[in-house]
């Protein structure tokens, strides 16, 4: 299945590098790091069964951290490291409170925390620039590669994305991954067996907030701009929609969801005047008519095609 991630990246790269201008390259860059973002949320929603409505908090905090530090004379790489540390630390602090409960309470608490973060970004004008956000962010150089060049930055993001996705996939297959799923399905039995359900959930939460911070830092350097919108409920919902469209807890479904949702938001602006209502309508549509998401549907489609190809050959049964 690692092949899937690699094929995915190659497709994204082919689209990007074969494109006539920077527009598609920027788009593909966003697909790359939104892949990290959506996969990290899927770790919570799909694997741990914790539906976070505040995942944009860590994305936004890392973005703000990179923006503020680089515009205050700190080097790009130091700023990124600090952003990852800050995002993860805040994930640890808020997660310690939030994962004490699951289900609806967890959703509401994460949403409340996210609104605090948004409120801070919006009203703490002295640091965050308020609604105007922070502009004038420069990308660092990596050895001989000037990341200011969009194609270089795209390759950088694509590699980071591939690495992050593979790490998260390893985690999923690890013993910790198994206990995260077990804590989702049978929390009482797990604690009866001596597992610390709170600690297991918290570790999933912290890992997810780390990878969301990675995506946030990459987003800040891509957009060269950060505003409270990155932490809004709209953005938090958009990532959630990516996971849901892709198929909750399907292994690489969120990546499919990223492409669907980003394409939708990028191009729906040309046809409808109200993108938020369009996103809401898409959400309702998915909830009502695509319970399992696009990825499982695609999977059955692919299996069906494979089967019919096998059948077309006379000795298919013997070959198996």
């Amino acid at each position, binding site marked *: 299945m690692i092949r899937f991630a690699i094929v995915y990246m190659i497709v994204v790269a082919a689209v990007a590098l074969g494109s006539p201008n920077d527009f598609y390259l920027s788009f593909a860059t966003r697909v790359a790091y939104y892949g990290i973002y959506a996969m990290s949320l899927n770790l919570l*929603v799909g694997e741990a069964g914790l*539906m976070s*409505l505040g995942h944009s908090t860590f994305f936004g905090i890392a973005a703000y951290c990179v923006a503020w530090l680089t515009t205050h004379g700190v080097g790009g790489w130091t700023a990124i490291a600090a952003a990852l540390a800050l995002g993860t630390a805040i994930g640890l602090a808020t997660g310690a*409170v*939030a994962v*004490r*409960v*699951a*289900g*609806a*309470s967890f*959703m*509401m*608490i994460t*949403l*409340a*925390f996210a*609104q*605090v973060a948004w*409120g*801070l970004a919006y*009203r*703490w*004008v*002295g640091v965050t620039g308020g609604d105007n956000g922070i502009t004038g962010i420069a990308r660092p150089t990596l050895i001989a590669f000037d990341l200011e060049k969009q194609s270089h930055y795209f390759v950088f993001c694509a590699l980071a994305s591939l690495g992050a996705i593979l790490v998260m996939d390893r985690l999923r297959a690890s013993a910790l991954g198994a206990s995260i799923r077990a804590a989702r399905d049978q929390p009482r039995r797990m604690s009866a067996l001596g597992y610390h359900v709170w600690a297991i959930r918290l570790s999933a939460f912290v890992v997810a907030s780390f990878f969301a911070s990675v995506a946030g830092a990459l987003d800040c350097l891509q957009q060269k701009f950060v505003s409270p919108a990155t932490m809004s*409920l*709209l953005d938090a*919902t958009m990532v*959630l*929609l990516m996971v*849901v469209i892709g198929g*909750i807890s399907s292994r690489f479904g969120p990546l499919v969801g990223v492409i669907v949702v980003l394409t939708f938001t990028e191009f729906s602006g040309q046809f409808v005047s*109200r993108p*938020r*209502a369009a*996103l*809401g*309508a*898409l*959400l*309702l549509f*998915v*909830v*009502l008519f695509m*319970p399992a998401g696009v990825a499982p549907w695609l999977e059955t489609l692919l299996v069906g095609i494979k089967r019919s190809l096998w059948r077309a050959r006379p000795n298919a049964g013997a070959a198996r």
Partner: protein
Amino acid sequence: MNQQLAITYLLGSVTYGGLLFLLTSGFCLIFGIMRVPNLAHGSLFMLGAYVGVAALRSGAPFAVALLAAGGAAAALGAIFEAAVLRRVAGDEMRQVLATIGLAFVVGDGILAVWGGNPYRAQAPLALRKSLQLFGAVFPAYRVAVLAIAVVSAALLWLLIERTRMGARLRAGVDDLEMTRALGVSAPALFTSAFALGSFLAGVAGALAAPIVSAYPGLDFDILPLALVVVILGGMGSLAGAFVASFVVGGLYIVGPVLLPELSYVILFLPMAITMALRPQGILGRSAR
């Protein structure tokens, strides 16, 4: 701080607490029976505010404006419950996503109908003066809001504790399976709970409109407050919501005076502390 100012803040806090209780009691009703945190609740509040302002501007009496606002919200809530939520019953995650979807559609719909500028209406003429209370000057409208909130809370209590519908709702909250087995129609119960909860949100919106005015973004400004109240009070506990409404109302009024830039954070502090010490909330029954 002198005494007059203190009394003004106290009255302001209590008024705001009353408004919050109207809003969150509806949220609690819906959550208590359907186990769905209705994230479109702020949108129903905003719809109530806009409809209320529109009614007042067209010269309708205040009571009519309140009922129109409540009615509009209740109708939308009932339709949404019957057309969408019922079809994804039992799947918490999808239900919540559906309420978010509704919130976005309603938010943009209101923007399309009423435009992006704040939409204001003045309080009814009889309530436009100010009152002298305990030596402090206070707008009469806010006192009226407090009175309406208290009366509504009392009516709600009567409805839930003393009527057949209330008995069904309480039974549904306690044990839905058994209630259904005893012959209560679950769809009717759900729709009426959702409609009643939406009605309360709409009325709260219309009551708040002359104070805060209706504006785009009101929905997600008010929703976090409702969440904090509900988490603080205990999920689905009306009594808990009542207590917590006044705590949050007080913080909302006094916070900006003490720490202007961090006022928004102060609101969430008691919630974080409660979560750490008592995850089920002040008067909540069980931590699910």
